[in-house]
């Protein structure tokens, strides 16, 4: 009989224990990082079809500007790296935000490549990738060479007038297609210290397009002298364009 009472007491205790409210656990919201790419011309949003005057006095407009950005990575304070996105096509005016959940912790650096890194660039077959991949035939939106192997890293297309005549129609084509292993550039931000634990944070990467078409960085991209390159046809212009491109990036943590 005593055993029965003992058993009942234990059961009642268990039931009471199970009914007791557990202390509330703190739910830490996910840590999210967004990298937002935007383009500016003299501090204002850079618009397609808008006519601008560059540092050399050339009037130009962009009809398209598409870029491969790769290995977008945040570096933690312990030196470990968190990949935000492997490969992305960024056009700087709409498809330009990349968001990913990241582990909690403090971060110090943002880095990414402009172009496609060597091991995924040469001797690859775009047809092998599913259409959802930006490296595929469909996903890359024509950003690959066909007579040669590899991807086009940056494609700036538009029209210009280099005669200096006010109001003259823009008739001269601009076609800067930069892309081979030598055109790959890596951007590494200045150091910062941001704890992303439980917060969403946007990192702004701004491309100052006016600085690409200026001598400010020591590499002339003067479209009055040369406005067309398919890299192989004018490697110097492709190199200068990519060098200026890298130098024209600013980062706001």
């Amino acid at each position, binding site marked *: 009989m005593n055993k029965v009472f003992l058993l009942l007491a234990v059961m009642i205790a268990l039931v009471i224990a199970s009914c007791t409210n557990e202390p509330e656990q703190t739910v830490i919201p996910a840590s999210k990082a967004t990298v937002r790419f935007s383009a500016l011309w003299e501090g204002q949003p850079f618009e397609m079809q808008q006519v601008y005057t560059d540092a050399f006095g050339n009037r130009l407009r962009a009809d398209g500007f598409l870029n491969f950005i790769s290995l977008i990575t945040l570096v933690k304070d312990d030196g470990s790296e968190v990949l935000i996105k492997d490969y992305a096509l960024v056009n700087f005016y709409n498809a330009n935000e990349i968001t990913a959940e990241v582990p909690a912790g403090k971060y110090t650096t943002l880095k990414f490549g402009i172009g496609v890194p060597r091991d995924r660039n040469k001797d690859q077959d775009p*047809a092998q990738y599913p259409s959802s991949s930006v490296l595929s035939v469909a996903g890359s939106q024509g950003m690959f060479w066909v007579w040669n192997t590899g991807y086009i890293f940056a494609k700036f297309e538009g029209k210009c007038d280099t005669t200096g005549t006010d109001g003259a129609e823009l008739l001269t084509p601009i076609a800067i297609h930069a892309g081979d292993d030598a055109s790959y550039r890596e951007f590494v931000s200045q150091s910062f210290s941001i704890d992303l634990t439980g917060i969403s944070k946007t990192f702004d990467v701004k491309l100052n397009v006016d600085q690409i078409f200026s001598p400010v960085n020591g590499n002339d991209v003067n479209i009055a002298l040369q406005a067309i390159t398919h890299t192989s046809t004018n490697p110097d212009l492709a190199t200068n364009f990519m060098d200026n491109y890298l130098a024209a990036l600013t980062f706001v943590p």
Partner: protein
Amino acid sequence: MRIVAFFVLFFGLIGCRESVQPTLVDKPVEVRRPQSFPPFEFPADNRPTALRIQLGRQLFYDTRLSSSNAIHCGSCHVLSAAFTDGRATSPGIAGIAGRRNAPTLANVAWMKRFMMEGGVPTLETQALAPLHDSLEMGTNMMRAVHRLNEDGDLKALAKAAYGRDSIDPFVVTRALACFQRTFVSGDSRYDRFLLGQKDQINEHELRGRDLFFSERTQCGSCHGGVFFTDMEYHNIGLYAVYSDEGKARATHLPGDVGKFKTPTLRNIQLTSPYMHDGSIASLEEVIAFYNRGGEPHINRDVRVRALQLSKQECDDLLAFLMTLTDWNFVQQKDLLPLER
């Protein structure tokens, strides 16, 4: 009651038979390889099957792969000319001539890299080049597959061949490559001679053969091996100044200016005109060019120099080159468009 049951069964069977779609059954295929050719390993994702080859054959001759719907791969790669077209450079969709002479596709399965500067690594990826080139088929792959997917029969064939629900760039590039790897040409008189049929070659041709492989001409040092090409890139001094930079277009190296992939000499009799731009009309003139030694160019291969060949020796060389023609190859019906 039995009569009712009979009719129910009869019409039931008829109904069932009508609803059954014809099933495409695929099977692996062994691509014929001449005895003297080295073994060739098909890519793991594109082993040859009957339906893959059939699909590639249909696509090779399909005008939907050009933006004008007027030309296909076979427009510039004609079987009777060993898959060249007899023109210096070929007109594309707009009737505007391209920059280079259409190369033969014979034995492409064994070739290492593609395009004359060798920038393209595989036969599969090579298909993207003419499709996208505005001077050739002038379309893009996504537009082409959109048009092809409107063809239910072709979609069914692609599904059976590659197991994909729609025709996509993978299917098109694989099927075209699969078909082209059946372009095997190794039955020339010279091949038969090497297999022991000594009566296939006469004295005149034998003298040409000896001259071809001699230290004096060194023709065979670039055009050697079973495919009569070293698959390397050379500047032969065709021009003192090249408007087409050749391999340098891909490498940007000054030392590669004017270098082009050595073409095979198999079926050379059928693939005129010659050189990367089709600028030399006849084989006689090609031999005369090499006999003169080419134009001065800093990258000119040292083996190209004045040969001092006599008229008779030039004739002997020509006679030998004529023995490299595979007449059976250019009459192979299964390489022509499918008859509808």
